């Protein structure tokens, strides 16, 4: 299954709903291009909804890290929403769970941006 990304705006936050696999190749490229486009458009508050991400490999993890650092370096914020157990476990093993701001609820995540 390839990865799909669609964006929507809620209270000034850009929510990117991702589904499928974030792996070396197409999945990583879709994520990279999506975040790059949002940054180019000047979006500073980006929430990646990973609820329908079924699989992620080390390349996908690297792409999440890259998205996080590029958004932060341009003065923005990037948070993660709705991690599946697989993604949660991978971020915990790689100690990235403490790096990302991870949210379980969309409304709370939006509030966290606007505090």
């Amino acid at each position: 299954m390839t990865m799909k990304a669609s964006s929507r705006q809620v209270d000034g936050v850009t929510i990117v709903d991702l589904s499928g696999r974030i792996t070396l190749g197409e999945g990583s490229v879709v994520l990279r291009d999506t975040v790059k486009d949002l940054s180019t458009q000047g979006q500073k508050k980006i929430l990646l909804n990973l609820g329908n991400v079924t699989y992620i490999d080390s390349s996908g993890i690297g792409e999440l890290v890259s998205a996080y650092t590029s958004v932060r370096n341009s003065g923005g914020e990037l948070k993660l929403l709705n991690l599946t157990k697989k993604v949660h476990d991978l971020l915990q093993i790689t100690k990235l769970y403490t790096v990302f701001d991870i949210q379980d609820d969309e409304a709370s995540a939006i509030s966290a941006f606007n505090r």
Partner: protein
Amino acid sequence: MNGTRVSYTLESSLASVNKAEQAAGEVAAKSGFDVDECGRIALAVREATVNAVLHGNRYDPNKRVIVSFDTTASTLTVAVRDEGPGLDPATLPDPLAPENLLKQSGRGIFLIRAFMDEIHIRTLSPGTEITMIKFVRGSGRDGNKEANQ
């Protein structure tokens, strides 16, 4: 259960990575691993095959990746071999070190070590072979988790 061996000779392509991952999941399921373990084994094999295709053979169409699965009643052993310049495990950075935590790459071998019970990296001439072993739960060997090179 008698031992079985399956081997695939693959092109240096992303399609091969997906094929190796899928085969690993199927072999692991037949070996009696549960769904979560099958997923971890498949990911470890995917990472090893990515290394072989990307860093080893560097997508060279003239070079092949060989992925083999050996199963016994107590173990699943997967070997991934490339024809690249060779990998020195001593040069691999620790992805958990603070200075590496936000690096984009360098987590593949780390994840293999996390998900498999043993890993051995052997330099060939040319190439690298990564051998990964997972013990079947209840076989009496599954508590013996350690990582070697």
